[in-house]
């Protein structure tokens, strides 16, 4: 029933698609993380002028579909003259840039809330002790709050990584030849949906399990003090 020849003949296409999926996913995860840490901090601020705008941003990006966000940027940016006339237009007219931007904004919103939750879960005693030792606010943040917050955020962030990997499949709707687009090309060329999409599914599954394994490895390292002692 399954024609393996189709799969083998198109393996290079799938490998190229996988590469595109991987760099899109990890580039937006990395950029998103860089943006998310200050945003997460801002969400813990008591100053409404700092907290409220960031809340609105995460509320919008977490409450709407990634596909619509991507369309707003890819199709929508050209509606505005100031974008068309700006020096950034060559970037906005390219699908990869729009996808990278949409994915980064999306993952940054989710990650900011993860960071916020992890920061708020810091035991008050640790902060008080650090302050009592004479550390400044910045030093407390750098030495006490952030390291333990990152550690606490790891399991949730692992889920976010997988969410982003799977979410990146929508890039195939804006002419980017990622793993999903590779499958769609194979399907339309041979009209063989099982071969085309099951192969892509296998590739995605392998990537998912690789990420799960990576997070487990990191957890072993970062959560070593929480593991029960070996008998």
């Amino acid at each position, binding site marked *: 029933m399954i024609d393996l020849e189709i799969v083998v003949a198109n393996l290079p296409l799938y490998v190229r698609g996988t590469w595109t999926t991987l760099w899109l996913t990890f580039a937006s995860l990395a950029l998103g993380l860089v943006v998310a840490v200050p945003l997460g901090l801002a969400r813990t601020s008591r100053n409404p002028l700092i907290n409220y705008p960031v809340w609105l941003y995460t509320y919008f990006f977490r409450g709407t579909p990634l596909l*619509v966000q991507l*369309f*707003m940027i890819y199709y929508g940016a050209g*509606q505005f003259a100031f974008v068309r006339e700006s020096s950034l237009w060559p970037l906005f007219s390219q699908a990869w840039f729009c996808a990278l931007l949409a994915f980064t904004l999306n993952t940054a919103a989710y990650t900011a809330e993860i960071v916020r939750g992890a920061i708020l879960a810091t035991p008050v005693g640790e902060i008080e002790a650090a302050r009592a030792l004479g550390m400044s606010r910045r030093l407390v943040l750098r030495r006490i709050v952030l390291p333990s917050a990152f550690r606490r955020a790891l399991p949730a962030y692992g889920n976010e990584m997988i969410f982003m990997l799977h979410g990146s499949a929508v890039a195939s709707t804006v002419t980017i030849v990622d793993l999903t687009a590779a*499958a769609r090309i194979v399907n339309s060329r041979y009209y063989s*949906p*099982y071969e085309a*999409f099951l192969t892509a599914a296998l590739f*995605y599954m392998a990537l*998912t399990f690789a990420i799960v394994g990576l997070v487990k490895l990191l957890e072993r390292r970062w959560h070593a003090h929480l593991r029960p002692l070996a008998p």
Partner: protein
Amino acid sequence: MLDLQGYGPSILEGAVLTLRAALAGLLLSILFGLLGALAKLSSSVPLRVLAGAYTTLIRGVPDLVLMLLVFFGGQMLVNDLTARMGWEHVDVGPFAAGVLTLGFIYGAYMAETFRGAILAVPAGQLEAARAFGMGPFLVLRRILLPQMLRHALPGVGNNWLVLLKATALLSVIGLDDMVRKAALAAGATRQPFTFYFAVALVFLALTTVSTLLLAAAERWARRGEARPA
């Protein structure tokens, strides 16, 4: 504020279809989820392996890929079946394929949620009910389901929010939902941002209402719990 140039009713029509697909998907996913959870907790090894494979495999693949697989592959399967049986041609259509896929995918997530919720109900209560002579279905209806609801609601709520946003993907397989209506309006008026932003706002409204309703439902489900004074 947003000038929809007469396309408002069309977008709203799409929104109704989006909501219908999402609700149908939710019902189906709850059904798949309950079956999956019961299979995962059953004493039969083949059932446990099957349910384990279902939840692990589905959660490893993007929903868009599964949707395309069911839409194109499902149509082929139906074509083969109707040809073999000598029936008339049946068109699966994006609504049926979409709802089926949504239910199937989120059923895997629901199964994990329900499994945890079932385990949170003390085993002694189920044993006591059995000892009173209740049959397995009566135990399910009177003891297990009402009590697991409380533990399952937060997870079900999260899954619903993800499912609702995933319905936007149905436009990719040709469902005439809100996103597609917006694409048509965007093409005619050359104002894509306006229309996709309007769609985003409708989704935002739907997720907001859902969050409020879920919070109320959770409070209701927890009404029997002791509150700290």
